[in-house]
């Protein structure tokens, strides 16, 4: 086995994303307490939690919008917790915030900033890929994102997040503000790009996303209270009542 083969094998054995013992918060207010999660290549991982559980704080910390107080974040084995957001994105993380798009820019401009760190040729070819995947966006590419409906905006947000050619897409409540029909559409989009080899870490309250989850974390008051498969989640009476008692 050559050195390159060995390196490739090592890379394949480490997690795509490995978060260990992360503590963080806003100013002096600690929100996350010793949080550890990981995402393997090709996985769709759902972080379930109620409002205020710390889901958005977790995602913002992973992408670099909030600093890590303690703990480590590794992407593909490389520590990234001290890197700026743009550096993390160029290493394969992409973040879809709850807003997801810049409303004042056109659809094409949103896609351009989604692929901001790509060279112009690569950005053009990736934009062509996105237009093939989302033909509606191509038709309306000169229109501002503010002219789109909620569902169309989410479609644009997904395309924008995929413009950077990510290995891992981190999504913050992609179902927020969407009708059940568009939630189904977003789930099918996730499946489509998962089939292309992209991993997903999705923070959600909507248990419909569990249909596609390979693993689930449950976050409560800044602490991880459950890790396992969807079947294991169903076998946990307290969580079953908390999440499926209301929504199921």
């Amino acid at each position, binding site marked *: 086995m050559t050195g390159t083969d060995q390196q490739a094998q090592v890379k394949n054995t480490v997690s795509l994303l490995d978060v260990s013992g992360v503590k963080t918060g806003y100013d002096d207010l600690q929100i996350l307490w010793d949080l550890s999660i990981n995402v393997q290549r090709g996985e769709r991982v759902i972080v379930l939690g109620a409002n205020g559980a710390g889901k958005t704080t977790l995602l913002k910390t992973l992408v670099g919008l909030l600093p890590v107080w303690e703990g480590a974040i590794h992407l593909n084995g490389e520590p990234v917790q001290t890197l700026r957001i743009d550096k993390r994105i160029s290493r394969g993380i992409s973040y879809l915030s709850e807003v997801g798009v810049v409303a*004042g820019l056109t659809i094409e401009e949103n896609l351009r900033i989604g692929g901001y760190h790509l060279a112009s040729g690569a950005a053009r070819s990736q934009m062509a890929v996105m237009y093939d995947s989302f033909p509606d966006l191509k038709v309306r590419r000169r229109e501002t994102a503010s002219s789109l409906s909620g569902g169309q905006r989410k479609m644009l947000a997904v395309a924008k997040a995929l413009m950077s050619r990510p290995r891992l897409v981190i999504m913050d409540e992609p179902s927020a503000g969407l009708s059940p029909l568009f939630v189904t559409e977003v789930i099918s989009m996730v499946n489509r790009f998962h089939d292309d080899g992209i991993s997903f870490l999705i923070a959600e309250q909507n248990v419909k996303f569990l249909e596609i989850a390979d693993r689930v974390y449950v976050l409560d008051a800044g602490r991880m209270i459950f890790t396992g498969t969807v079947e294991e989640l169903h076998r946990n009476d307290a969580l079953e009542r908390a999440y499926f008692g209301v929504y199921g």
Partner: protein
Amino acid sequence: MSTFLFAVVSGILFGVFFSLMAIGLNFAFGVMKIVNLAHGDFVMLGAFGAYYALSTFGINPFATMIMEIVVFLVVGVGLYYGIIPRLLRSDDPEMLSLILFFGISQVIEALATLAFGTNPVTLPTNALGQLSFQLFGQAFESSWVISFLVSVVAIGLLYVYLYKTKMGIATRAIMANRDEAAASGIDVNRISAIAFGIALVLAAIAGTLTPFMLGGIYPSVGVNLTITSFSIIVIGSLGNPIGTVVGGLVYGLSLLLMQTYLSSWANMVPYVLLILILLIKPSGLLGKGARNA
């Protein structure tokens, strides 16, 4: 009738120049949500740069303009990294920026007074070159027309930067939603630093033209230029650089018409327009909805 037409054409020539003078202030506000109260002082420094270079070394104002573009860009980027990220981390960056830049304005004015004294200085109007321009049977000052053309080019280049380049689109993303821009992987600090540098470059270009448009310059003129610039951007739309062009034209036309027909009232124009626009359309002529800044 010919007097009226002269006032209107002159108003347009001056209006575009005023747009250039104010656009940097609006650009910096749009990107960083800070009010650079020293903006007029940077315009004044640009003007004294042109005066000093011509009167001491005989350097053409256009050559000075190119040198000032480089110097002001470097100063703007340095000033950004030196103070603005700290301001933006504070609880009330807008208010702090007012206080801080007021201080910077006073320092610049004091240093300029030490260097150049308090007496107004002027430049020969033909120093920008000769260009014959007649419209409606009226001849217009060559320096006005050249200043107008330079202003059009500078504003046009800013438009091309903002709408046709990758960095410009990133700048507009920051103007629209700083957090979302950062989440998209845009290096917000780097783009903002360049934007602040560009804002000062625009001030420098306007400054080089100021002696030819406004006559005598003196260190304390910076405050007046800031007030005029602020009025123009409020008239157009605070935070929208393109709105500044509309604000500048409204201001230029109003000023020249007042100077033509009611000259003793002309100095009140910026203040009256400011009050009127705040009462009638607080978001500015090109603003959408109420401004919360």
